[in-house]
């Protein structure tokens, strides 16, 4: 189902062709990073810290280096000290510990050998002597007076800070008169919420192959959301110029934010440099859970004031995000994500808090799900207490164009109201709630970002086109690029080959993140196509002996009045005689990213004996701006929803007392499986983004924001319990039922 505002007529945009990279993916031919091997390749294995916080007294690698097949060993001593002021310092220390380990699983050394087994044997022979240091794992412990210092190089940002601290950022935002508004409110609801750390859970572990040549240049093949960032970070960690590193993106087996940073590439590069042979690293699943980015745990206190007729007059929130052992702006981003409702009076206090846990990484709409779980739960409780329909209450308070965000910026044209109306009018919401079940509603949004993108488009001599970008394709973006190019050029989408090129074959392009690829890289593709069209119009004008101003581009041909149209294929065939190859490149720093709002509706039943929650029906409505390939837009809504359902009901990092992860496997860290779920119904709302040639907003991020509160709100209505801690797993729900 698609709700559209003044739909323009497109030939290709909005259709559902088979994606170009699909054939290789259903036949097993697609090459992911772990599928690549180079002649003479070594395999590398890590030594990781068994302590959450310790000083490294000594590392003895002599026995390992003497073992059969071992070609190189690295420790922190093999990487330069960038200095704590360097923006890549934290990454460099996270990649390989220097004199201190900051979390259980922190990399301490790595061995390259002729086989993975020999490398593992040698890694086990490395002797590390530690002096344990006090460690903290929770927000409360890290913020307590006299708490042990997690990381002596962390100074609090956004405030004057003379001494190191466990706070990475402090953000205070305020508008209006919050205290007066609460005093005047008819109803005030205040609650505290907690969420557990969760992992992005991509099915493909991090993998790379790196070949550092005798010329000192490293060629990297890896799984990443942004190979230009891999290039810059890898070079920085090695102390090299960026130009010494070339990165070729392999197919990527899921990322969701977790592959926007690096872990293994500089280690493989240094080992390869030392051994003179290519080095391959493939993380185990255990390593992925223990040493790569979870999303932060959080603690959020929310107080909302309302009038009896459902106007939300004030919001006060205290938010803390547990970002692990290195600084991170999660708290700031969490405060920024509070912008769905008008809230004339607002006061936010947000913290990013360090702990001796792995360095947290981005995960789909970073920081927003935590805040939305809290605020959307309290807003729903107000709807319940005032006996107002939860959609009507939200419609009454929903932000619209011109309303200011928590940061004080006015929203551009947004589609929150349209999403609420779409759910209200949906067959799902109009249908009765099934017997024994209850229905929950919640909303969410993500800002989305623009950033830098490049594209090159070739019109080939056979009348086909090649579209080359620098954006790794994590969910079907190549098909979107081809569709926009087809629309511009007037070519069949199947005559277009979309590619993602290495760092030396396409202009600089920022990482695939923030729902930016179809938006920003799409703009670059459109611009390159339009430049090509101008070139083709000019060539046709010369051929026809008319002024270029008299030539328009229509349906894949140059058209001048009084002449037969000159199709692209014939311009392409003549290109040698009319000025040479037809090619154009465009690079830009995209402005005008469009926020994408979503409203979810879920029906569920709670088993009062076991505490198990079964989702019976689920609908996700989201503003895509324009859906370039609707199937993959639906896929983003469905995938985001189910990740959120997993976060809501099951997923959590379970820590032992020593800070080690107790559930570092897919058996024990249980992401949703097919039998847990119903179909995920989607409603694509299309309120075009005026800043994009096709109105694209970007859809990847937002889907994960509403599910936690959707489910908590439904559980509240089903069982009369207000769940304030994630996950709402059976033991936690059962406890709440028993305390009811």
């Amino acid at each position: 189902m698609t709700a559209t505002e003044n739909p323009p007529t497109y030939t290709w945009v909005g259709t559902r062709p088979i994606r170009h990279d699909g054939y290789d993916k259903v036949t097993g031919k697609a090459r992911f990073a772990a599928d690549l091997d180079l002649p003479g390749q070594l395999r590398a294995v890590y030594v990781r810290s068994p302590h959450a916080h310790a000083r490294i007294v000594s590392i003895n690698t002599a026995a390992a280096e003497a073992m059969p097949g071992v070609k190189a060993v690295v420790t922190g001593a093999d990487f330069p000290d960038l200095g704590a002021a360097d923006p890549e310092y934290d990454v460099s220390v996270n990649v390989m510990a220097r004199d201190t380990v900051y979390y259980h699983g922190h990399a301490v050394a790595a061995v390259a050998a002729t086989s993975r087994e020999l490398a593992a044997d040698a890694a086990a022979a490395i002797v590390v002597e530690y002096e344990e240091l006090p460690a903290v794992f929770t927000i409360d412990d890290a913020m307590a007076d006299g708490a042990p210092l997690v990381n002596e190089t962390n100074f609090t940002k956004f405030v004057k800070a003379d001494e190191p601290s466990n706070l990475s950022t402090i953000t205070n935002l305020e508008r209006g008169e919050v205290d007066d508004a609460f005093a005047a409110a008819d109803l005030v609801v205040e609650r505290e919420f907690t969420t557990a750390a969760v992992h992005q859970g991509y099915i493909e572990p991090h993998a790379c192959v790196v070949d550092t040549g005798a010329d000192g240049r490293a060629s990297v093949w890896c799984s990443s959301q942004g190979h230009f960032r891999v290039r810059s970070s890898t070079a920085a960690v090695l102390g090299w110029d960026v130009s010494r590193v070339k990165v070729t993106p392999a197919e990527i087996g899921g990322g969701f934010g977790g592959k926007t940073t690096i872990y293994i590439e500089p280690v493989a590069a240094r080992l390869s440099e030392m051994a003179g042979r290519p080095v391959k690293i493939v993380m185990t699943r255990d390593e992925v859970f223990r040493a790569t980015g979870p999303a932060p745990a959080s603690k959020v206190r929310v107080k909302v004031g309302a009038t009896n007729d459902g106007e939300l007059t004030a919001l006060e929130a205290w938010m803390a995000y547990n970002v692990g052992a290195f600084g991170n702006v999660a708290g700031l981003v969490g405060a920024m994500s509070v912008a769905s409702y008008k809230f004339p009076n607002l006061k936010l206090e947000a913290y990013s808090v360090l702990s001796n846990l792995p360095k947290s990484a981005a995960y789909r709409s970073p920081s927003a799900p935590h805040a939305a779980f809290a605020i959307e739960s309290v807003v729903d409780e107000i709807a319940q207490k005032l006996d107002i329909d939860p959609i009507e209450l939200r419609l009454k308070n929903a932000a619209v164009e011109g309303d200011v965000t928590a940061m004080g910026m006015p929203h551009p044209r947004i589609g929150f109201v349209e999403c609420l109306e779409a759910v209200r009018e949906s067959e799902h919401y109009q249908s009765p709630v099934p017997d024994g079940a209850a229905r929950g509603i919640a909303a969410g949004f993500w800002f989305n970002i623009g950033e830098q993108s490049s594209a090159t488009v070739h019109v080939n001599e056979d009348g086909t086109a090649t579209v080359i970008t620098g954006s790794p394709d994590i969910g079907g973006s190549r098909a979107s690029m081809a569709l926009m190019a087809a629309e511009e050029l007037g070519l069949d989408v199947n005559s277009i080959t979309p590619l993602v090129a290495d760092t030396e074959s396409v202009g600089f392009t920022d990482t695939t993140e923030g729902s930016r690829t179809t938006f920003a890289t799409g703009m670059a593709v459109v611009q390159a196509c339009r430049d090509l069209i101008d070139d083709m119009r000019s060539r046709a004008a010369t051929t026809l002996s008319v002024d270029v101003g008299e030539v328009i581009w229509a349906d894949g041909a140059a058209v001048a009045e009084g002449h037969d149209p000159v199709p692209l294929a014939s311009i392409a065939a003549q290109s040698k005689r009319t000025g040479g190859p037809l090619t154009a490149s465009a690079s830009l720093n995209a402005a005008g990213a469009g926020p994408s709002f979503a409203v979810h509706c879920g029906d569920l039943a709670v088993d009062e004996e076991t505490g198990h929650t079964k989702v019976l029906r689920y609908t996700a409505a989201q503003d895509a701006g324009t859906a370039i390939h609707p199937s993959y837009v639906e896929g983003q809504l469905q995938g985001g929803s189910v990740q959120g359902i997993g976060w809501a009901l099951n997923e959590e990092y379970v820590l032992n007392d020593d800070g080690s992860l107790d559930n570092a496997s897919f058996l024990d860290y249980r992401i949703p499986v097919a039998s847990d779920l119903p179909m995920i119904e989607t409603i694509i709302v299309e309120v075009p983004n005026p800043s994009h040639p096709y109105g694209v907003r970007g859809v990847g991020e937002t889907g994960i924001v509403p599910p936690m509160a959707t489910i908590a709100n439904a559980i509240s209505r089903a069982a009369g319990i207000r769940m304030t801690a994630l996950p709402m797993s059976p033991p936690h729900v059962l406890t709440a039922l028993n305390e009811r």
Partner: protein
Amino acid sequence: MNRTHVNCTVNGDDVDFLAADGISLLDALRDELGLTGSKEGCGTGDCGACSILIDGKLNCSCLVLAPEAEGAEIVTVEGIADGDHLHPLQQTFLEGAALQCGICTPGFLVAAKALLDTNPDPTETEIRYALAGNLCRCTGYDKIIRSVQEAAVQLREVAK
């Protein structure tokens, strides 16, 4: 190093390879036979990305020691098409947009084939339980389930 000489058929071809002690069938397929379509997502039988058929039965190849393949008939994702004619599951996965990143797709295709080979008319619930050993983090399963349903319809039409 001890190595075991293993003979079997893979996707209809007679093959043999030397298996080092402790090597899984997944490693043998990927490293010895160059069939990298089967993926390792966990190495502990929890994700299903390495799903293969051994004598027609669904297995996680990461949990099978390579010498156990002796004399067996093995089918991997590379073997489910009929020459250049895609299996209906492969076609419906493409048309139904049942993959995003594609890392889990080989395992899902093999597991779905194992289901439809034995149950040509499964209910949605049966499909969901049959595929519960295969993890997908991208799609939320919706389009995968629908594509399996559509392939089942097509296969039943062919069988008529």
